[in-house]
């Protein structure tokens, strides 16, 4: 048994701890509640490990500088909430098309606009997928606990590096701010993935996919390869291309590198699903409410289980389809007015009847509400 350090830790703090263990060396951001602790803790810790922290002049500059840090070869992160996530969208698209590894933490709060700055919500689920303009694939992960925030942040860095893509850690105010027990593994016990870089003297084309690779190799600026990065559609040389044929190839590769690797990217959890006749699908902190409710419902004899997507995007399509085939009815419980429920409906089609339980007034869903809804529709 390897040694683990047990601590009481806040979700946001666990996120930075994990980022550092994953190799984060660069953080750029802008203060915004409820994500600010991520910047504060990064500013304290990064220079101690030779890393860099910078508080930029706005949210847009925060993600832009973080992308710059990644291009210079450092594992980079930025963090935000609510309005800041909206402001970052254009450059999320930039990181997607230019294939720059980057972790973006969004500690969700109530919206739209300034909304409910200190209250939890899960209203950015669709924005995480479609917030930036244009077609692209994205990875978004949603933790339900402090421990899972740690694990998911490590995973986020690994996926960002492996697939050369922005990865969104879609947490919420509840998980970000609460303190609970965390067991921090020894650094040697954590799997760390680093981007593949071209070998010295290699004939390098920055966006050429080599046989056996998932994504093109990525040289840091200043390593002697002198190449071009642009947010325009580009060919494998990295230079802009207006060719529709090239645009097609590029876009399909960008999307398929994520969609075709769902089995590697998708994480989920099930609770009491073995004999379930009804299912509740829920994620992030709301899944804890549901878990609590399911225990009550089970005590009352209702055969209900929880399916909890940890990877929100790409969705656990295969598994959610299975849930739809297995149960008669599904409730999707989330802190919004109806977002992931649309994805579930899209996947299960007519296999099961899908209901929504949600709210976006700044209050978490209570176990009693879930129990009541289940009794009503199941």
């Amino acid at each position, binding site marked *: 048994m390897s040694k683990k350090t*047990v*601590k*009481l830790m806040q979700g946001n703090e666990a996120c930075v701890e994990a980022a550092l263990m994953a190799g984060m060396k660069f953080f750029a951001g802008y203060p915004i*509640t*409820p994500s600010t602790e991520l910047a504060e803790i990064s500013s304290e810790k990064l220079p101690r490990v030779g890393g860099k922290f910078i508080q930029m002049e706005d949210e847009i500059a925060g993600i832009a500088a973080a992308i710059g840090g990644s291009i210079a070869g450092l594992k980079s992160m930025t963090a935000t909430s609510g309005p800041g996530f909206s402001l970052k969208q254009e450059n999320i698209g930039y990181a997607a098309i230019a294939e720059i590894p980057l972790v973006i933490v969004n500690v969700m709060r109530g919206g739209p606009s300034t909304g409910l*700055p*200190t209250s939890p919500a899960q209203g950015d689920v669709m924005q995480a997928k479609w917030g930036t303009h244009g077609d692209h694939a994205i990875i978004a992960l949603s933790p339900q606990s402090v421990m899972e925030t740690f694990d998911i942040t490590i995973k986020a860095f690994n996926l960002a590096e492996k697939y050369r893509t922005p990865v969104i850690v879609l947490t919420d*105010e*509840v998980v970000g*701010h*609460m*303190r*609970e*027990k965390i067991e921090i593994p020894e650094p040697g016990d954590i799997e760390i993935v680093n981007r593949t870089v071209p070998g010295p003297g290699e004939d390098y084309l920055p966006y050429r996919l080599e046989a056996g690779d998932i994504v093109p190799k990525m040289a840091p600026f200043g390593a002697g390869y002198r190449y071009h990065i642009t947010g325009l559609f580009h060919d494998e040389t990295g230079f802009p291309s207006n060719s529709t044929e090239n645009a097609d190839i590029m876009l399909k590769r960008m999307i398929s590198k994520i969609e075709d690797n769902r089995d590697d990217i998708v994480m989920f959890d099930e609770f009491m699903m073995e004999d379930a006749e009804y299912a509740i699908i829920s994620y992030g*902190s709301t899944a*804890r*409410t549901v*878990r*609590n409710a399911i*225990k009550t419902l089970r005590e009352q004899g209702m055969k209900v289980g929880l399916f909890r997507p940890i990877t929100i995007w790409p969705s656990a399509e295969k598994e959610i389809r299975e849930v739809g085939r297995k149960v008669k009815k599904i409730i999707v419980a989330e802190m919004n007015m109806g977002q992931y429920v649309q994805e579930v409906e899209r996947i299960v089609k007519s296999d099961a009847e899908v209901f929504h339980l949600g709210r976006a007034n700044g209050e*978490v869903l*209570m*176990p009693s509400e879930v129990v009541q809804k289940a009794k009503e529709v199941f």
Partner: protein
Amino acid sequence: MSNQTQIRLAGSGGQGMIMAGVILAEAAILDDKIAIQSQSYGPEARGGASKAEVIISNEEIDFPKVIEPDLVLSLTQEATMKYGNSLKEGGLLIIDEDILLPEGFESSRVIKVPILRTAKENVGRAIVANIVAVGFIAEFTQLVSRESVEKAVLGRVPKGTEPMNKKALSEGYALAQSVK
């Protein structure tokens, strides 16, 4: 759920109720129990009534928020009015000695304790009232071991203030023994 204890610590912003919550949760974890601490954010954390919540349990805690506290400790009148009346049936309300309970206030068990005065007179600093409160709760409820509480206090308070806080903790324990 049955072996869960839900605690709400209320006071005014700046009284260190969050720190008190963190210490209780940490002590529980040092005792190998499960604990969650959460708090109110925003303007109220910087003045006005503020609260910190702790759940201590022997098994996994699903729902992380306090619904009906088994115990509310409040140091100010305002916080008592705001957070004092949501107690579970049979729950315990611990309030500072000068707080007046409004008429019709429903609580089966109320204890008035001189927490602020103890901090001020016996330790010499009102600012350690939160640690006196921690000592009181720890001794009164026996939820966490004294060894763990001490360890948590010393690990969380600012460097140089350890002796003062240790004294405050002992005063809290003594206070609880005198009330029991």
